[in-house]
């Protein structure tokens, strides 16, 4: 790690003359920080290292999740293909018949679908995305030495790690992991005898996700406290970069919604292990009515989606924040409509708590109640459209640098529009009667919160890689990665809209046995091939990531993108405490690009004589 000697050379004179002296470096920081390998790389309490831990764990899980999707895509695209070549990897889940043809076990197909959803939604797009960038950027961008409680921050990562370990273990159970869908609706999740995966697989799933809730809460409490109480001098709320705003609202959503999921899980655990009937009623097993009555499976769905919908925004808001920031920097223009962006983030955050039942229109909720949920849901289109308009407004007339992160930002906006529009269809309870649980839904949420969130994450990784590792990622490989992913994602999910409108249901094992769906064989093949190619493009990214970490072009200037925000006032490889001397004092908002004929003005540079604050 860097020592203070290397960084003093580049350190900004302004920070020393104007900055705020918190006497940070006068103290001994004991042996807790970066004293040996263990405290530097494993049980680190430094937010930058924890961010890297989250990122790399997230990449690991993204790889596993994507591999799973490839396996079940092969099953869907080529249901008659011989899969015996997968036997070495999947073992008994590939059954080889006498003719030597290997088949994927249907039970395991469901497990794959379930695990793919759980892993990508929770481990990659929640922990891997907001965990990484909240940790990295919040202290750096608001001018703080570290998180409010570095210790709890470390615990947050290790609870996430533990949760992942439990889930990983469940993949190797003899009965397989949980297979009842990532939402884990009862009765499949509440009765251990309901299916193979409902036994130990479900138990471990619950343990894993309960640990995950703990991790999210520890992180969330930290992020909120840090943003609200630890900003540097001059960093008012209205001067914070949009990234920080997005992380703040994300953390609030997580803080308020994950506990409700936890309550739902606790009740489920009781149903499973102690024989209560919170979620069970009218269950017949082998023609016999179970003695478990009085509850309602819909109750679980309500509790789950009370988390579930905010969760969608927990995933997409950080991506939105990253995109706003990266886009402004690389269009060399102030973000268009800064305050409108902030209010949109808040509005989306608020609305996310009152729309959850739009996931349940067809589950038998009161139709009268559905009307309200439809209206609330459609209102979300307003702040979302404001944001899209502002991104396009930011690009308009900008001096755009077409580097990889900018491409991913543009890709994000494209994906967000395409996926958002189909959301308006699904938000109407009447149209939902036709569309629910078809591939239309699959296409919708994969584009709007899967691919779009990944694009935001990629933009963030390419942009802040120099801050994380002191080296650049390869831009050519990045562009190859972008174009294949962009085209590939549309090739995969575009046709799925068509399938969905034709009524093809999701989560089926194979379609060629249904007369109604036989005609889509070629389309399913096409989707599978496109998915495989898109997956290969992600390997380009992974190679680029790890290669650049050690061999990438070195960063030679503290502010390689000529960006305004505070993280670029730190040394190239900031040590513990981020700034070697004083903490910079902030004099302006984060988006003074092209003001008074100056290309960019960093936040810690005081106003000139007679200069006015940018109005925003």
């Amino acid at each position: 790690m860097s020592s203070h000697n290397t960084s003093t050379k580049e350190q900004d004179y302004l920070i020393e003359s104007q900055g705020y002296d918190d006497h940070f470096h006068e103290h001994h920081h004991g042996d807790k920080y970066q004293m040996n390998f263990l405290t530097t790389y494993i049980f680190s309490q430094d937010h930058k290292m924890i961010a890297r831990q989250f990122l790399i764990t997230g990449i690991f899980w993204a790889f596993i999740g994507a591999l799973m999707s490839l396996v079940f895509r092969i099953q869907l695209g080529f249901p008659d293909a011989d899969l015996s070549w997968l036997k070495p990897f999947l073992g008994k889940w590939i059954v080889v018949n006498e003719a030597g043809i290997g088949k994927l076990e249907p039970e395991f197909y469901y497990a794959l679908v379930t695990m793919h959803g759980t892993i990508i939604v929770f481990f990659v797009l929640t922990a891997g995305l907001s965990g990484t960038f909240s940790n990295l950027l919040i202290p750096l961008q608001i001018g703080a030495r570290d998180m409010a409680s570095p210790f709890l921050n470390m615990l947050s990562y290790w609870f996430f790690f533990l949760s992942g370990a439990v889930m990983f273990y469940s993949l190797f159970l003899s009965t397989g992991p949980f297979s009842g869908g990532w939402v884990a609706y009862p009765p499949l999740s509440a009765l251990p005898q309901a299916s193979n995966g409902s036994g130990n697989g479900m138990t471990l799933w619950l343990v894993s996700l309960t640990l995950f809730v703990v991790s999210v809460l520890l992180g969330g409490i930290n992020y909120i406290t840090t943003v609200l109480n630890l900003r540097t001098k001059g960093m008012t709320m209205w001067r914070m970069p949009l990234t920080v705003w997005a992380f703040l609202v994300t953390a609030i959503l997580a803080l308020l919604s994950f506990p409700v999921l936890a309550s739902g899980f606790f009740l489920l655990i009781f149903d499973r292990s102690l024989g209560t009937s919170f979620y069970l009623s009218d269950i017949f097993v082998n023609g016999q009515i179970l003695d478990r009555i009085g509850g309602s499976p819909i109750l679980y769905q309500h509790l789950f989606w009370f988390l579930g919908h905010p969760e969608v925004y927990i995933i997409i808001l950080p991506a939105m924040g990253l995109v706003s920031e990266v886009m402004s920097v690389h269009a060399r223009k102030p973000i268009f409509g800064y305050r409108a962006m902030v209010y949109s983030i808040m509005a989306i955050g608020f609305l996310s708590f009152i729309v959850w039942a739009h996931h349940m229109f067809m589950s038998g909720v009161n139709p009268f109640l559905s009307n309200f949920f439809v209206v609330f849901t459609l209102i979300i289109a307003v702040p979302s459209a404001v944001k899209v308009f502002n991104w396009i407004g930011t690009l308009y007339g900008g001096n755009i640098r077409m580097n990889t992160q900018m491409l991913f930002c543009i890709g994000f906006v494209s994906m967000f529009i395409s996926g958002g529009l189909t959301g308006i269809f699904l938000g109407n309870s009447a149209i939902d009667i036709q569309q629910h649980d078809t591939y239309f839904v699959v296409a919708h949420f994969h584009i709007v919160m899967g691919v779009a969130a990944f694009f935001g994450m990629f933009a963030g990784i390419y942009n802040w890689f120099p801050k994380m590792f002191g080296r650049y990622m390869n831009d050519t490989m990045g562009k190859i990665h972008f174009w294949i992913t962009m085209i590939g994602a549309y090739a995969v999910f575009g046709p799925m809209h068509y399938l969905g409108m034709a009524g093809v249901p999701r989560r089926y094992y194979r379609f060629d046995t249904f007369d109604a769906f036989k005609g889509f064989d070629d389309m399913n093949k096409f989707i599978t091939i496109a998915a495989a190619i898109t997956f290969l493009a992600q390997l380009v990214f992974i190679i680029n990531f790890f290669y650049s970490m050690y061999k990438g072009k070195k960063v030679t200037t503290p502010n390689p993108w000529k960006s305004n925000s505070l993280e670029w006032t730190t040394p190239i490889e900031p040590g513990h405490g981020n700034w070697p001397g004083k903490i910079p004092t902030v004099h302006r908002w984060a988006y003074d690009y092209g003001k008074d004929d100056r290309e960019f003005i960093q936040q810690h540079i005081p106003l000139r004589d007679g200069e006015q604050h940018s109005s925003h």
Partner: protein
Amino acid sequence: MADHAIHNHDSHDNSRLWDGAKEPFKASYGKLMMWYFLLSDAFTFAGFLIAYGTLRFSSPAWPVPDFVFSSLPGDIHHKPLIFVTIMTFVLIASSVTMVRAVQEGHRYNKKGVVFWMFLTIIGGLSFLGCQAWEWTTLIGKEHMTIHNNPFGSHTENGVYLEGDGHDIKAGDQFKVGDSYLVHKHDGHWAPLSYKNEAGATKTQQLGPKAFGALFFFITGFHGFHVFSGVVFLLIIMINAWSGIYAKRNNKYEMVEKIGLYWHFVDLVWVFVFLVFYLL
């Protein structure tokens, strides 16, 4: 702002503020984190209580709490809500002693802090004891468990056909919503027969299962909070005694933080008391 200066010279890495020029909320990060933790915990309880309400709304009949919670130690029965009122007092009193401990902390009065915290712990333990007695009675004497709820309530008007010595005589009248207890003899439920208004002969039935399960689950979760509170109080009391908080020179902030938690437990009880015992 005096508080702030103190923090900056605190040599403890973990408890020092990584702060810039000011604390916008004029509270240390530890207190803020406690507040936000309590907020999220409030949502956990809200999840439970909303689930309770939903299941209760979905049941045709619900036992009347005045009938269910009417026993007192010493084999006293039919004294509705007296015992739980005592429990509530105990918890309120322990909250009050906690406030006193925090106040003594602000004056750096170590003896005062330890004394009042000790009383708080006694209060917490008494509450847990009361709860243990209540659960024991409900489970052991009245056979209410998470699987069975012997407390039913009538869904129609009618008259009893037979009495079995449990204060019900043949010919006693009852109204819609009146509660009854289905007794258990030798491991079997012994429901009474009655005639409804339409003249049909019927038998008492067990009440909604969810009642027992929700009661034990939610009061148990609250009791678990009380128990962990007592453990934390104990640790912090010993620490306060040893003088390490006095050295930190931050007005015994740790005592204040655990105080917040303890009041929160009391706050939750206000709502548990409301929905289980009053409504």
